[in-house]
């Protein structure tokens, strides 16, 4: 199968019913174009009522999230092996002021053989999910097999990452364009794609040392949003806009990331990173239901619960 970029462009065509959807949206904000002949979907909600109650909902749910995690155990002093116990339990809190779901908590339990049970709590509700990672895959830079194969020597790690860069990173004369931006962006994607639970402590240390030695990347000793001592590695973009990755200065455990830009920002904090012997029974049950309802082909395997 010979595919080109034109094939990708051809994929983006209007689906049936888009005109009706357009009218429904405009009608809901008082800018209706014409009579609505069909309502395929139920009205979402009363526009004004939602606007009026949004602040209250945010306040209630945010309070719930805080209470939920007040009793959560602190991150262990020493970095955990990749998945040493029955399950690796991670809680990640993301704040995106410019998104509607501006405050979100992800909680994931990962087994040593790649089964994952998770929740995601936003302003509206908690979603449950289940998935299975192929631990042998090395196809992508964020796949478990690739992450587990990372060299633990900083220089070799850099060479390894560059060796897996594709041709778009090379100029016509054959030189590698923007190597600093490439390694920072690649490392950043390990976390953006939720793959970091497969990074060993030694690989984490190599990542930090590699980034510290990369031109244009700035190193700062800071405290993270939870008050923990952290090494913050910045990739400056322009006019004060930057991406940051935060690590524990002693264990190199990943603590979170941040983006500071003109008019927008986001912040991710790893609040809990520990090993545990069980997955909460409610998570397992709701994830099983969600897996079944979604019709995925993941082979469900019940975790140890409690």
């Amino acid at each position: 199968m010979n595919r080109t970029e034109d094939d990708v462009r051809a994929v983006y065509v209007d689906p049936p019913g888009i005109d009706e959807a357009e009218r429904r949206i405009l009608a809901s904000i008082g800018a209706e174009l014409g009579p609505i002949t069909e309502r395929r979907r139920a009205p979402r909600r009363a526009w004004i009522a939602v606007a009026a109650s949004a602040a209250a909902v945010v306040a209630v749910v945010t309070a719930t999230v805080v209470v939920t995690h007040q009793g959560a155990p602190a991150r262990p002093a020493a970095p955990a092996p990749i998945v040493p116990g029955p399950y690796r339990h991670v809680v990640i809190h993301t704040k995106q002021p410019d998104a509607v779901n501006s405050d979100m908590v992800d909680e994931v339990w990962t087994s040593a053989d790649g089964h994952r049970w998770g929740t995601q709590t936003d302003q509206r509700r908690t979603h449950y999910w289940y998935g299975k990672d192929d631990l042998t895959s090395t196809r992508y830079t964020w796949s478990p097999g690739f992450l587990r194969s990372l060299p633990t020597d900083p220089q070799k790690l850099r060479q390894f990452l560059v060796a897996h860069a594709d041709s778009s990173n090379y100029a016509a004369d054959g030189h590698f364009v923007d190597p600093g931006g490439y390694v920072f962006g690649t490392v950043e994607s390990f976390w953006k794609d939720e793959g970091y639970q497969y990074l060993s402590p030694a690989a984490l240390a190599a990542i930090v040392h590699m980034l510290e030695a990369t031109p244009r990347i700035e190193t700062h000793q800071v405290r993270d949003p939870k008050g923990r001592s952290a090494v913050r590695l910045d990739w400056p973009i322009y006019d004060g806009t930057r991406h940051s990755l935060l690590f524990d200065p002693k264990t190199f455990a990943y603590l979170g990331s941040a983006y500071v830009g003109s008019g927008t920002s986001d912040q991710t904090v790893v609040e809990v990173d520990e090993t545990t012997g069980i997955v909460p029974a409610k998570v397992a049950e709701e994830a099983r239901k969600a897996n079944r309802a979604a019709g995925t082909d993941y082979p469900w395997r019940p975790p140890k619960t409690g």
Partner: protein
Amino acid sequence: MTFEAFAKARVPLLLRTAVALSGDLGLAEDLVQDVLLKAHQRWDRINGLDAPESYVRRMLVNEFLSWRRKWGRIVPQDDLNVVDQHPDHAAVHADRQLLRDEIDRLPKRQRAVLALRYYVGLTDAEIAETMGCGVSSVRAYASRALATLRIEPALRAEYLVPVEEGRSA
């Protein structure tokens, strides 16, 4: 410009962008409604910007990236099923649907880059600004997505050499 006038002018493209991002009309409709609700609450500030439409598009992409529902948890398959080639028109349509399905299985940031590049027609710098990431990240996401879709599969093995740091931009 009033919020209503802005919405009337921009909803068609916002909705189509949301469809390109999500691959699902129902989800796209929800995304646009939620973003317009947020924009309505901030309209005084947004209306004062040089390019309100760019700001609202960024809100839309942020909203899409933050929506990790259960159907968004589908992990991309390592080895995608490759259909046999059939040189007829039905096969062309089937190939397009297959490609759409494969795009929908990509990680969301990769899907967003493809939609913004190949549907909206933004430059990599504009995509970086929209997604709140660096241009290098945009290119990394795009190249990985295209490689997964077997559009840019070749790795440049001849460049498996240490990077010369002095060439850093």
